[in-house]
């Protein structure tokens, strides 16, 4: 197992804030909008340097999405910022009609996704947003795994033409990816090469997959770990290549197993290469209040759960 270390922990939303600032410096067409959550979205640096390119819309997310769609007409590249729940479910038809169907170059940037939002509880912890967004034709869906990857992804989506959903989170987690990485939309990242099982992880679950990989190595299981940061378009080639070698797969995501990354992988595999698969994901449930660590544990999203899923799926492979 390749060794991954980290010297600091940071939140992915701060990676977004830093990436937005960079993107703003690189391209004067980049504009930002926020719905009364500037601090939570870490937009301060962008606002400080480009005050005239920032719009505070107030607590009015539907209006924000519509305004963003309108601002693309004439060449601006709007980045909208609010919590993941209010970025998706709250404004689904506005995104569907004014952004996705109209093919507008809007970047929907969503913080506080998943259970790790913590104490605010289920009203704010969306576990369905990947599903909602990936079902929209033409929508790119990205869920980066640490500060550096989120920053790189934010810069990359400014250069991509078309609607994008960028999902990130609130808690501080290890920073373990290359600070100078080039982010390629739709291209999987090989975290660790192995032969016994393919672990496919996205977002906060990638570090957990690395922890699981270390535990599995101690048990004599050689896990291949792939980071799928772009859930749509999915890197079919990387997944098929790995699964051909390992013969079984575990998908890991901080999301409902209905509609998430796991189902995208399952769809690919049933059509191309039917393979035993286990899902590390929430199981058709809402979240609740608690600390991020407590919730990840209670809802089965820890490294131990990945280890168990791997053992189970390897058993199914042999059967």
């Amino acid at each position, binding site marked *: 197992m390749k060794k991954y270390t980290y010297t600091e922990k940071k939140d992915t939303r701060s990676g977004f804030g830093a990436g937005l600032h960079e993107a703003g410096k690189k391209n004067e067409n980049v504009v930002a909008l*926020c719905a009364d959550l500037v601090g939570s979205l870490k937009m301060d640096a962008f606002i400080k340097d480009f005050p005239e390119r920032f719009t505070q819309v107030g607590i*009015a997310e539907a*209006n924000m999405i519509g305004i963003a769609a309108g601002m693309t007409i004439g060449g601006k590249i709007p980045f909208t910022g609010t919590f993941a729940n209010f970025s998706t479910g709250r404004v689904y038809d506005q995104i569907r009609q004014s952004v996705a169907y109209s093919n507008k170059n809007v970047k929907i940037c969503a913080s506080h996704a998943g259970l790790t939002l913590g104490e*605010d*509880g289920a009203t704010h912890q969306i576990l369905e947003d990947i599903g909602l967004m990936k079902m929209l034709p033409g929508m790119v869906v990205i869920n980066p795994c640490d500060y550096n990857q989120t920053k790189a992804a934010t810069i990359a989506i400014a250069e991509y033409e078309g609607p994008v959903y960028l999902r990130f989170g609130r808690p501080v987690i290890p920073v373990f990816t290359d600070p100078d990485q080039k982010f390629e939309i739709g291209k999987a990242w090989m975290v660790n090469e192995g032969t016994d099982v393919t672990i496919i992880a996205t977002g906060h679950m990638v570090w957990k997959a690395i922890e699981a990989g270390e535990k599995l190595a101690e048990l004599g299981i050689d896990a291949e770990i792939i980071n799928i940061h772009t859930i749509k378009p999915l890197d079919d080639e990387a997944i098929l290549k790995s699964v051909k070698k390992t013969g079984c797969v575990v998908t890991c995501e901080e999301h409902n197993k209905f509609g998430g990354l796991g189902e995208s992988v399952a769809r690919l595999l049933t059509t191309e290469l039917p393979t035993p698969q286990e899902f590390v994901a929430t199981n058709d449930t809402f979240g609740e209040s*608690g600390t991020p660590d407590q919730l990840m544990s209670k809802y089965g999203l820890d490294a131990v759960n990945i280890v168990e899923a791997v053992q189970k799926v390897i058993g199914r492979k042999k059967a």
Partner: protein
Amino acid sequence: MKHTIKELEDIASQIRRDIVRMVHGCQSGHPGGSLGCTDFFTALYFEVLNYKKDFSMDGIGEDLFFLSNGHISPVWYSTLAHAGFFDKSELATFRKLDSRLQGHPTTHEHLPGVRVASGSLGQGMSVAIGAALTKRLNGDNSYVFSLHGDGELQEGQNWEAAMFAPFHKVDHLICTVDYNGQQIDGPTDKVLSLDSLQAKFEAFGWHVINTDGNDMAAIVEGLHYAKTLAGKGKPILNLMSTQMGAGVDYMMGSHKWHGTAPNDEQLATALAQLPETLGDY
């Protein structure tokens, strides 16, 4: 009056203590709006609301209350506990794992007193209207109360509801706005001005009254008066001026305490300003 103003103020003091202790206990949550609305909640539950001790979801023949700005759950939870809906010891579980006292109110854990989830802003007025329509269909003459943040009124759904209620003569509905002039990113006037809420709601066909939400006698009187306006063909909007953080000097009047928990020292300072009247949980 069921209580003297002094008795109500004593209850409010205890609720304010509970709020800062609850938010301190989990180091998260929203003290600012909770403290600002404490006098309103006290007046409502201990003086005005005609509710049954045994909680039922359908609430037939009793007044109903909906909290649309769900983030101020601490004040509601403490009020419900002191009003007898559940034991006040449960307040210690606020925002902790496996609690019925979720960060934002929910029916999911069956907490007595709560009839719909809130937290995602801007949805409560529609729900309150729906409940009032059902009361009318049921021939039930009791009242429906609701509370909304002023920043929350930036959500468009409120204005769909605001247009609906007068048109359909939903006139047993008393909506109160926590008019504190603050929201997360700053004063509402700087974020997205609400301009004249009175003129806006009147133009939509509401009967608008103004109250001082941090003066116990005034808020009790205002809510009683609002009830006398019901049944006259118009929904009632209570524009209630409050101070965010009312009762704790260093929290007052600033959006900074919208959603920040006090540290140990700040807690001590706050508690020193709020007499313990009914016993801490």
